[in-house]
C-alpha cells in the first residue's frame, strides 16, 4: 500500500491531547490536499479520545490551527487550487482548505472507529498499562497490515511490539510540542521494525516538511535522553548550592538564570521543565528508570514538587501554569518556595544579591534571540565561550559545568547507541529545543 492509499483512512488516538490535536491538524491538512487531487476518494480521519470535553474543544483548536497553517502555506494552496475557477482570492482558498480539512474529521469517543484505518497515530497519556490496553484493543479490531506510529516519549517501542505481537509494525514517531510548529520528529526504530512502516514514516515526515532524526529504541531516545539528564543536572546543582547556604528558591533562580543567560539558551532549565510540565518531566524518569539501570535518574526536590502538586504545564489558552517558577503572561516573575508554599517575587534586594553572586556577564554574552538571527553567530559564540571559560565568576563556573555536563550527556547518547552520530544529537537539540549550538561542540 502506498502512503497516499494509507492516508485515505487514518486514526489519531488521544486526539484531544496536546500532541494528538497537533497531529490531527497535520494529517487533516494532508487529506485536504489529497482530496483535491482525488475528488472521488472518500477520506476519513478518526479523531479518538476518551475525553468528551477534550473533543468539544478539539474542533475549534483545529480550525484555528488549520487557518494558520493555510495562511502560511498560501503559495502552495494557490497552486493546489489553480484549476478551481470558483476560488480566486486567498481568503476564498483558505476558507475552502480549512472547510475541506474539517470535513474529513470524525470526532469520537469510540476506539473502534479505527477499525478501517491503515495508519494509526497513538498519542495517549504516557502510561504503559494504558498504552498496552489501547494498542491491544486496536490490534484486535484493525487490519493485520495497519501501521502504528506512537508518540511516546520514553516507552521502548520494542516493549510494546513484543507484548502485543505487532510484528514490527510500530514505529516511534516522536513529534515535539506543538507538532504544528515544531519541525523535529524523532523516528524511533529497532532491528525488528517493519521496513515498510519505517519507509512510509520517512515519506510522511518529508511531506509534512519535518526534520526527521533517527533514534534507536532506548528509553528517552535522544530528545528526552538529553533533556532528562540536563534537567537533572540543574536539580543537582540546586542541591549543591543549598549546601553552600542558599535557600531552594535562591538556588533555583541562580541555576535558571545561568542556564538561560550564560548558556544563551531560549529558556532557563526550570522554565523549560515548567513548560513541558513538572509532572511530564517526572514521568519521564519513572519510565526511564524501568528500562535503564541507572539509580541516579531521580531527584528529591522533583518528587516533592509532585507531592505538593505544583505541576507547570499550560492552561487551555496556552499560557504558562506556575511550577518551579511563577509566571505572569508566561514570563517568570517569581520562584516557588516549597517550604512556605508561596512564591517569592523576582525583584529588589533578593534578586540583586543573587545576580551579584552570579557576577557580571562575560564579554560577548548576547540574548538568545539576537544571537539566533546573528549572521556571525558561529564566530561570536566561539569568542563568547572562550571568555566564559576565562571568567572566574561563580556564574561562569556554573555555566561551564553545565556546558560540560551537556556535552557528556550528548556523547553518552552516541556511545550507548541511542543516537547514530553526534550530528543527530545536535540536530535534535537545535530543532527540537531551539538551541543555537549543539551539546557536542568545541566550546
Amino acid at each position, binding site marked *: 500500500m502506498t502512503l497516499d492509499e494509507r492516508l485515505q483512512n487514518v486514526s489519531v488516538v488521544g486526539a484531544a491531547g496536546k500532541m494528538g490535536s497537533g497531529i490531527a491538524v497535520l494529517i487533516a491538512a494532508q487529506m485536504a490536499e489529497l482530496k483535491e487531487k482525488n475528488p472521488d476518494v472518500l477520506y476519513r480521519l478518526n479523531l479518538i479520545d476518551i475525553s468528551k470535553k477534550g473533543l468539544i474543544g478539539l474542533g475549534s483548536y483545529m480550525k484555528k490551527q488549520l487557518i494558520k497553517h493555510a*495562511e502560511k502555506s*498560501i*503559495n502552495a*494552496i494557490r497552486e493546489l487550487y489553480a484549476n478551481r475557477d470558483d476560488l*480566486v*482570492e*486567498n*481568503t476564498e482558498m483558505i476558507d475552502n482548505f480549512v472547510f475541506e480539512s474539517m470535513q474529513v474529521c470524525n470526532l469520537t469517543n469510540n476506539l473502534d472507529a479505527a477499525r478501517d484505518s491503515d495508519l494509526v497515530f497513538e498519542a495517549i497519556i504516557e502510561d504503559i498499562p494504558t498504552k498496552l490496553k489501547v494498542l491491544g484493543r486496536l490490534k484486535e479490531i484493525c487490519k493485520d497490515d495497519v501501521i502504528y506510529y506512537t508518540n511516546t516519549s520514553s516507552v521502548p517501542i520494542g516493549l510494546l511490539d513484543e507484548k502485543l505481537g505487532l510484528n514490527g509494525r510500530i514505529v516511534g514517531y516522536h513529534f515535539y510540542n506543538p507538532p504544528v510548529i515544531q519541525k523535529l520528529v524523532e523516528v524511533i526504530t529497532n532491528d525488528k521494525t517493519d521496513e515498510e512502516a519505517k519507509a512510509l514514516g520517512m515519506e510522511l515526515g518529508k511531506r509534512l516538511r519535518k526534520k526527521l532524526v533517527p533514534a534507536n529504541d532506548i528509553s528517552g531516545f535522544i530528545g528526552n535522553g538529553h533533556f532528562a539528564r540536563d534537567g537533572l543536572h540543574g536539580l543537582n546543582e540546586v542541591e549543591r548550592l543549598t549546601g553552600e547556604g542558599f535557600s531552594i528558591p535562591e538556588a533555583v533562580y541562580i541555576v535558571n538564570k545561568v542556564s538561560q543567560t550564560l548558556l544563551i539558551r531560549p529558556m532557563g532549565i526550570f522554565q523549560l521543565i515548567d513548560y513541558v510540565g513538572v509532572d511530564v518531566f517526572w514521568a519521564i524518569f519513572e519510565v526511564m528508570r524501568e528500562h535503564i539501570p541507572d539509580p541516579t535518574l531521580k531527584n528529591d526536590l522533583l518528587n516533592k514538587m509532585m507531592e505538593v502538586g505544583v505541576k507547570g504545564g499550560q492552561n487551555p489558552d496556552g499560557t504558562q501554569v506556575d511550577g518551579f517558577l511563577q509566571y505572569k503572561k508566561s514570563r517568570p516573575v517569581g520562584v516557588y518556595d516549597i517550604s512556605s508554599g508561596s512564591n517569592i517575587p523576582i525583584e529588589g534586594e533578593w534578586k540583586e544579591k543573587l545576580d551579584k553572586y552570579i557576577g557580571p556577564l562575560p564579554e560577548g554574552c548576547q540574548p538568545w534571540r539576537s544571537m539566533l538571527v546573528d*549572521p556571525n553567530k558561529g564566530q561570536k559564540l566561539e569568542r563568547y565561550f572562550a571568555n566564559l571559560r576565562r571568567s572566574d565568576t561563580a556564574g561562569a563556573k556554573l555555566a561551564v559545568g553545565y556546558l560540560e555536563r551537556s556535552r557528556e550527556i550528548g556523547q553518552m547518547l552516541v556511545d550507548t547507541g541511542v543516537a547514530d552520530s553526534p550530528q543527530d544529537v545536535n540536530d535534535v537539540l537545535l530543532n527540537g529545543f531551539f538551541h543555537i549550538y549543539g551539546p557536542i561542540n568545541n566550546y
Partner: protein
Amino acid sequence: MAKFRKPVYVTAGYNTIALGPGRKEWRPKDTRPGIEHYVKEAGMGALNQVNDPANIDEGVLGNFMMSRYCRQGNRPGFIPMIHPALEKKPATGTEGACGSGGLALTVAIKSILADVAETVLCVGVEVQNSVKSVYGADILAGAGHYAGQRKTGHAHFFPGKFSDRAGFYFKKYNKPEATREAMALWYANAIENARLNPKAQEYYNDLEDPFAVGMTPPNPKAFCENINYYDCSKVTDAGTALIFASEEGLARLGVDKKDAAEVISYGQAESDITRTPDDLSVLWTTKAAVERALKDANLTINDIGVFEFHDCFSIGGIIALESVGLAEPGRGPDFVKAGRIKRSGDHPINTTGGLIGYGHPVGASGVRQAVDILHQLTGKAGDCQIQIDPNRPYGLSISMGGDDITVICTIYKKTGI
C-alpha cells in the same frame, strides 16, 4: 494644457507616524486607532498651522480601500469630522489605488484653478493593519484587474507583479547581480533616510548593515522569485494632510509665502487596467505623466533638486529612474550604485524614507509625498533637511496607482526665487 492660469500653493503639511511592524508603538495584538484617528490627527495637524479652519473652502480625502480594510465607504464624510468649521462644505473622495493620494492633489489643484475654491484641505489616509497581510494581499490586488489577473496572480499579488518586472529587467539587460545590488542599495538608502525621520516606520531600524540584509536571496517558495521582503514597502497605517491655496487663499489663511511652496504643474496619465505592457522594463504611464508635468513646467528632469519616487518596490524605483530619463535604459542600477540618489547625491530621492522607509499607507502616500516635498522646499524637513540647490529649486513627486496604471506627477517650486 500649459501653464496654470493662476499660481497654486501648498502649505501646512502634517504626517502622522507610520504605524506598522518596525515601530516601537506597534503591538499587533492590541486594538489600534482606526481611520477616524488618522484623519483627525492629520487634518488638525494641518489646520493648526493656519489662522482659522473656517477659512477652508473645501476638502478632499484620498484613500484606496477603506471599503474593505475597514468596511467603510463614503470617504468625503470624514472631512467635516476633522473640524466643525468644515461641516456642510464641499468634500470629495478619490480612489485610484496607490495613486489615490496623487489624485487627491489634482482635485485640490483643479478646484483652485476653476475658481470654485481658494483653499482646499487635502487629506490622505489608509488603515491596513486591520487585516492580516495574506488577506490584505487580496484587497490590494484590487489595484490590478480582478477578472483578468487575480486568479493567475501571485498570492501576494503586487510583489508577484514587481518580481516579474525584476525578472524581465534582469533578462533584458543581462545583469541580475548588479540589479540586485542596486535593489539592496535602494533599501539601504530608504533606511538611512528613514532613520532621520521620527515619523517613519523604519525610524527605529537599527540593522548594522542594511545593504547586506537587502542582499538576502529571494525565496520563491516562501515569497517571490526575484524580490525579497526588503525590496517591498511594508503594510502601514497613517494619515497625512496639507492645504492647497491660491494667492488670495494664502492671504486669507494668514500664511506667509515663505511657508508655502508653489505647485507649478502636474501631469496625470492613465493606462488601460485590463492590459499589461509587453515591455516590463519601462513604467510607460509614469513616463507619460512625468513628461507632461515637465513640459507644462517648461523644465527638464535635470532641473529638479529633490524627488519623491513611488518605490512600493525597490525595482520599481530603479526602473522609474530610467522611465523618467534620469538614467539611460539599462543604467538605472549604475545610477543607484554611483550614490546619486542619496541625500548627498546630485539627485536626492526619497529623503524622508520613501515608501520603503517611511511606510506605504497606500491611498495616503501621494499626499505624504507632497507634504515631504513641501517641507524640503520650505526648510521644515528637520533632520531630513537637504540643501536645496538655488539653481534647481524644484521638487517632483510621482504617485503611482497599481502596476503603473494611474499616475500623477506633481512639480513644486520653492517660493521667493
